[in-house]
């Protein structure tokens, strides 16, 4: 049986950039015990001799000619921006003060 602790879920939530309340963390940890048991069944048949499939189509790289085509205008590209300044996306501070 696999289980996740409240702290495990907190770490994953941090990696996934989702703030979670104490209640959410505890509930999700409980749910995951059941869910992980169910999904872990894949290990029963996934032998070393079985190849992995990541995609239904046998795809190779798809290229297009490197030519300039019309794209969104700056106004269109910024039309959904939560905040903008001087034709740019305005974002919160990304780097520290130093």
């Amino acid at each position, binding site marked *: 049986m696999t289980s996740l602790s409240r702290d495990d879920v907190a770490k*994953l939530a941090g990696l*996934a950039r*989702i703030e979670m309340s104490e209640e959410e963390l505890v509930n999700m940890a409980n*749910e995951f015990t059941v869910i992980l048991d169910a999904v*872990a069944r894949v290990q029963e048949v996934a032998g070393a001799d079985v190849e992995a499939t990541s995609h239904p189509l046998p795809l190779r790289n798809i290229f297009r000619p490197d030519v300039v085509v019309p794209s*969104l205008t700056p106004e269109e590209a910024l039309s959904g*921006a*939560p905040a903008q300044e001087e034709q740019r996306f305005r974002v*919160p501070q990304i780097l520290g003060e130093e």
Partner: protein
Amino acid sequence: MIRSNATEMAAKLATGEITSVALTQAHLDRISAVDADVHAFLHIDTEGALAQAAAIDAKRAKGEKLSPLAGVPLALKDVMAQKGIPTTCGSKILEGWRPPYDSTVVANLKKNDIVILGKTNMDEFAMGSSTENSAYGPTHNPWDLSRIPGGSGGGSSAALAAFEAPLAIGTDTGGSIRQPAAVTGTVGVKPTYGGVSRYGLVAFSSSLDQAGPCARTVLDAALLHEAISGHDPKDATSINAPVPQVVNAAKSGDVKGMKIGVVKELNGDGYQAGVRARFEESLELLAKAGAEIVEVSAPNFEYALAAYYLIAPSECSSNLARFDAMRYGLRVGDVDGASAESVMNLTREVGFGKEVKRRIILGTYALSSGYYDAYYGSAQKVRTLITQDFIRAFEKADVLVSPTCPTTAFKIGEKANDPLAMYLNDIATIPVNMAGIGGMSLPSGLADEDGLPVGFQIMSPVMKDERMYLVGAALEAALLSKWGAPLLDKAPIMGGAR
């Protein structure tokens, strides 16, 4: 006018018996009358739809040659980008967002002069089987308003069953077109993966997602299928090959000599008695129509659900990283001195619902170092085994069939607190997505015990989508002559209460 099917509407438009403006207005009136109860729509574009209809009427008046569905209205799942029209994916994180571009599906609809009425409700980011995960409240099944219309595309299927639209677009990652079709008594088709462009379809699980047609008849679905299909250079996974001849197949419905394979593992225990009875009856009708029924086995399908709930969350945890509060959508906590990371954390806490968070966390776990091989890696191997099961089965049969879902529509709220019970709903639809093949659900009647619709699923090999239309059309014709009228005529569509 709204009770006929899309093919009949198109014929009346072509002869000038009705105009697209009148037809569109009739549907808008129907939406006004019933959608407070059904809640199929998240946004209704009255002005845009009527303007589009008027332009099509003008083209027709000038004698321009129009496409087969020109002037017929359609409901669009809110996961497809439509320029200037709110596109939420049923999520608070995209509330108020208006895409600056059209998805290829929308571009194809417009090119074919199909009138877009509005955007339909769905489980948030298409994660769910009931539309209960929509941030804007659930959609109600027109057969019984206390029941789910399926999901994630429950808005599209309910709009069809409530006669709010004769055509709709859905997307299917693990059954989100077929399961809603099954529980509402409508037709839904998941084309071969790559058959319809994913450009502008907001991604949930990129290797599984596929847009497709929803309608009230097999031929209507085929006409819409053809209208939205084709190679698209904007989608690198779009198949560059001729579109399968689905319309011809739907018109023919000739199954003489075809081999229909019953998948042994997708029946029996866990399937409701009424679901099994309707399935057996449909098989008899297909045999009478000249098909040969054979049994096939797909031993690895029992692992499909487990593999799906690793692959889809893994891909979703990566795809939904784009909702970072920086370029579009919701932004929360952007106070003086707040870091970008804290704004992302707060925005995603407020913007995502419970099921979306659950899947992002599960995917993050399955992809994390130390667990990758045991979970995501093993799930990818199961995917290979399922694909091999299909290849072997298609050596014995031209198409495969099963019930679409193990049960009829359940009550709203019944499974909301049990994610695993909810996931089990998709047990028969998920293998199709894993292998990227085609799948259709069409109504096979009502379950005796509850009087609710039952779906019949047909699966066809990659890019042989025409085969499921042949079988679907044959079964539909046989059932229609048995019933004497379309199944939806029995629905208590608001007039008489159920």
